[in-house]
């Protein structure tokens, strides 16, 4: 176990280092520096800034300065918003993203679980077909198409929920729902196939033969075992939630990280784009790390040393 965790940690660090290196050299390819606009900064300020970020030094030293700044958690300064650090921009925008992302996952897991269980228990009935159909729709229709249509009908035409902006809690419901669609579909499909497999196992027949109540059989023996592999889809789901926030925050005008990201792309604010990219990458890699370890702990059948090769992505 310890060896496994250390190995995973090693991969995590190497992956992050590679991403940081790629972003650094991309920065060199992009035009300008954060401080190349002389009207915005005095000569003295320029000097201080250049010295702080090492822009007057050779490339190799710049790289290590950049690395050093990153290790201290300093993501640099915005190209466009005068004097604002990327850290501050991420800090003030993480809240709404975390809220709708978290709600999206919770709603998705619950609805997906219900849909998947119904589908498996009523296998090959109209309920099963209905659930499978919903899951296929959820997997296929791009989240931004779904979100745009939701906003148009629920928000604008019927006026049930606020269509956009971010004032009170009710404004977070529609973005969360839009994010949860893919989670519902993925979890439902997964739970369905896992449960169908578990339902055919000998120990389920044994439990039934012992005269245990059907509800107990389903809850204690079937669902519990079917839930373990769901951990493996949590990693990819975290990615799709992050991907989703990029567009869904744009659609619903949620002042979150994703909206900042698309905004920065429009105005070519490279340092913010790269800062958020690094932040997302680190978060993603961390989630995958946790999921890998969780799976190792939860399912004793998986040999931890070797890992599961035909993994999740």
């Amino acid at each position, binding site marked *: 176990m310890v060896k496994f965790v250390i190995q995973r940690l090693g*991969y*995590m660090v*190497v*992956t992050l280092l*590679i*991403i940081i290196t*790629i*972003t650094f050299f*991309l920065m060199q*390819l*992009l035009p300008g520096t954060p401080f190349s606009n002389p009207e915005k900064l005095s000569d003295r300020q320029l000097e201080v800034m250049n010295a702080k970020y090492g822009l007057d030094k050779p490339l190799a030293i710049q790289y290590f300065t950049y690395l050093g700044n990153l290790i201290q958690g300093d993501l640099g300064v915005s190209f466009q918003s005068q004097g604002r650090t990327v850290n501050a921009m991420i800090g003030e925008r993480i809240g709404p993203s975390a809220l709708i992302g978290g709600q999206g996952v919770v709603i998705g897991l619950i609805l997906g679980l219900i849909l998947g269980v119904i589908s498996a228990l009523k296998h090959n009935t109209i309920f099963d077909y209905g659930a499978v159909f919903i899951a*296929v*729709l959820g*997997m*296929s*229709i*791009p989240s*931004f*198409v779904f979100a*745009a*249509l939701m906003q*148009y009908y629920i928000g*604008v035409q019927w006026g049930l929920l606020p269509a956009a902006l971010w004032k009170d809690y009710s404004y977070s419901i529609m973005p969360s729902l839009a994010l949860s669609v893919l989670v519902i579909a993925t979890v439902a*499909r997964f739970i369905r*196939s896992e449960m169908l497999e578990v339902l055919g196992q000998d120990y389920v027949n044994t439990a039934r033969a012992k005269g245990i109540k059907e509800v107990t059989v389903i809850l204690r023996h079937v669902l519990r075992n079917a839930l373990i592999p769901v951990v493996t889809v949590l990693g990819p789901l975290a*990615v799709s939630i*992050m*991907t989703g926030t*990029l*567009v869904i925050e*744009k*659609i619903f005008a949620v002042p979150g990280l994703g909206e900042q*990201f*698309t905004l920065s*792309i*429009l105005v070519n604010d*490279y340092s913010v*784009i*790269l800062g958020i*990219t690094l932040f*997302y*990458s680190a978060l*993603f*890699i961390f989630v*995958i790390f946790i999921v890998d370890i969780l799976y190792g702990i939860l399912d004793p059948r998986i040999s931890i040393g070797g890992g599961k*090769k*035909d*993994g999740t*992505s």
Partner: protein
Amino acid sequence: MAHHKPEITDDLFVHEPLEEGKAEELAGTPSNFWVEAAKRLLKNKGAIMGLITIIIIAILALVGPLMNQYDYQDQDLIRSNLPPLVTGMEWMGFNGEDSHGTNVYAEREVTDAPAWFGTDEFGRDLWTRVWKGTQISLFIALTAAFLDLVIGVIYGGVSAFYGGRVDNVMQRIVEILVGIPNLILIILFILILDPGITSIILAMVITGWVNMSRIVRGQVLQLKGQEFVLASRALGASNKRLMWKHLIPNVMGPIIVTLMFTIPTAIFFEAFLSFIGLGLQPPLASLGTLIEDGYQEMRFFSYKLIFPAIIISAIMISFNVLGDGLRDALDPKMRK
């Protein structure tokens, strides 16, 4: 214990009555793998409907832009923001009326050919643009999927074939690539390459091939050590027969299935990039840019969003359903 040997007489043996079904089962020649797969696929109504939808959309994407006299980049301000109008299909909403219920065609005295899907704010015909956009989206997705296939098969094949140290190094590289969120790499590469069809394809291929290579490697490794390959060789099968009868059919299934799921993913990524402003530049159109444009004006001109949204959803659903069907048909073991 008395030794008692009952005499075995001929009348103790009775002929087993011939079963109709059994005889037929034995008589039938073992059918070809692909014929059987096709039979299984044909039984799957959803997959067939998906296939038909894809074919129809592909044909329309090719001939659709030629079906009226408008080009996808012709601007005509007199015809700007015309609602959809199809003569004879007014009852379905194609009535040329805007969101206030006034007939824009009558109001502006537009008499030339109606716009079936309406027009955008520059008066460009949306029927033409939607199908042109579908054509470009499909082109991007198919090219990206094809490149993924080529790189993935070569990389996975080499890795599994040579094994040992080569495999070890190649797999460490893959493991690191898998760890990088592909969307982020794609966005970074689009930022340095100019947005356009080529850069979108390149950016998607940079990470896209990894999945295919893993599938191919897994398959080849598994097949290399299997008894039926050895048995077939021991029975004197030629290399050619081994390849065509055993290896290809077993590797092709998972490759085709993976390919089927790569295409909708590529279509999604293209649309996604266009939606966040990293996609194609006007006047070029793709489903993503059309959805983005339509979304901006959906409040008053909802038709601009609805047609591309329906088409992209139909393509995605069809490919996913077809992919599921193919997986069941080509590899019953993989059935979920």
